């Protein structure tokens, strides 16, 4: 059973969040890690899933992390635009690993603890769209040697995996007969020029994709 979006949510639920407990208790050990003691109004950090379970029983208040505040999100939106304008290669701003799942879970289950949730939702959606747009454009930069990007969240990787893997597979198939040379002009997905170039380079090359793969990895592919 491969990792799916439910699993990503599961991993995001292990992220820590600040809470204010409404009860007094000793420390509690969860997954081998100690949390507490619980002494209101003292804040403490707990895994998101545990915080939500306590909140369901009206036993705590959750303090949303900084990354779910309007200031932070507006700042990130500006930063995404700034990076876009000032650096041609469209880098992404830095976000926590499970940012998207984490925000979704909190908005679904602890909306009342978030200040102006409608605005937060709007900003999150906008941020998501801007980033997705940038990532899609990266597909044009895809070359036979793969791709490198900064600050992709896990959810974004999960989303682009099928398309990018398929595109890279296609590029490698087109490029199959030749050796991987980083200095060579990259083959682009949407470039007519490169296709012509391919034809020129392809002449007299009898190596099949299977041979090429075996040569590289010493592995027989039966797929």
């Amino acid at each position, binding site marked *: 059973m491969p990792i799916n979006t439910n699993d990503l949510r599961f991993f995001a639920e292990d992220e820590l969040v600040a809470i204010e407990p409404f009860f007094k208790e000793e420390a509690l050990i969860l997954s*081998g890690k100690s949390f507490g003691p619980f002494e209101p109004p003292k804040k403490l950090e707990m895994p998101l899933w545990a915080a939500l379970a306590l909140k369901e029983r009206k036993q705590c208040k959750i303090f949303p992390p900084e990354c779910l505040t309007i200031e932070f999100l507006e700042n990130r939106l500006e930063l995404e635009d700034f990076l876009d304008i000032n650096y041609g290669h469209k880098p992404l701003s830095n976000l926590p690993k499970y940012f998207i799942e984490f925000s979704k879970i909190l908005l679904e289950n602890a909306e009342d603890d978030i200040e102006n949730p409608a605005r937060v939702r709007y900003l999150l959606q906008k941020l998501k769209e801007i980033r997705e747009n940038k990532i899609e454009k990266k597909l044009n930069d895809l070359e036979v040697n793969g791709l490198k990007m900064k600050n992709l969240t896990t959810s974004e990787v999960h989303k682009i995996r099928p398309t990018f893997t398929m595109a*890279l597979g296609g590029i490698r198939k087109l490029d199959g007969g030749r050796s991987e040379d980083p200095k060579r002009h990259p083959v682009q997905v949407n470039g007519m020029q490169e296709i012509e170039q391919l034809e020129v380079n392809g002449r007299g090359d009898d190596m099949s994709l299977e041979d090429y793969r075996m040569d590289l990895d010493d592995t027989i592919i039966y797929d």
Partner: protein
Amino acid sequence: MSRIFSLNELGHAGSSRLSRPTRPTRELPDIDLDIDDLTDSDTEDEKDQETQLKDAETSNDYEILKRSLINEEFSPEILMYQDKAIDNLDKLIQEQDAVSKDMLVTHERKKFGMLLFSGTDRIKYIMEKYLLCRRNKIETQVLSILSSPIYKERLSTAELTHAEDYKMLLEDYLKAELKLPNDCLEDSIIKTFEKKPDLSKTVFCRVLKNIVPRDAQDTAIQHEPGDVIMDKYAYMRDALKDNSVELI
């Protein structure tokens, strides 16, 4: 029964379908341990420190297993079995089960008991998913794994037994299906059913430590922590082995 089949021991008896953690009812394990024993101990600081160290270790085991699960899911080949993490978490589950059972009978501490139950279920979920992922890989690549000493070394004892049993079953099946006499199943026939790991599979990985790109002429150019690289698994294999990258 092989270790890899012994998921029942981990508390999911009779459940063939992997489900997200719930709050099942279980038998009380025979361990007399209370949460207070761990946190409110009347012994001296030394013991507290010991407990804290143990906490840090088991918490780390949970994180290690989560990371190993993700790596295992995306890696085309079988990776090293995390025996230490599995053993430690198995013990932790037994301890937590006993503690939470005690808590649930005390009304004031019921909410904590429920939390502990859920916490234990989360550990079990990760363990079960990890073991199932490996079992699936072993069964798919059984011939390739058993023919390679490197891959064989990566299996637990129970996984190795399971792989050998599975290979025998496969051979029996082939004999029956191809209607061959017992001694006529040649290696070449078996080899045609061998599925090797596709090391040229494209994977995504996140850089954890600075690494030099494979095509860099200048070693000053490095992949930095946080970079996400998409490339062939074969090129990321060594970096994954020394924990310089994690698969995502």
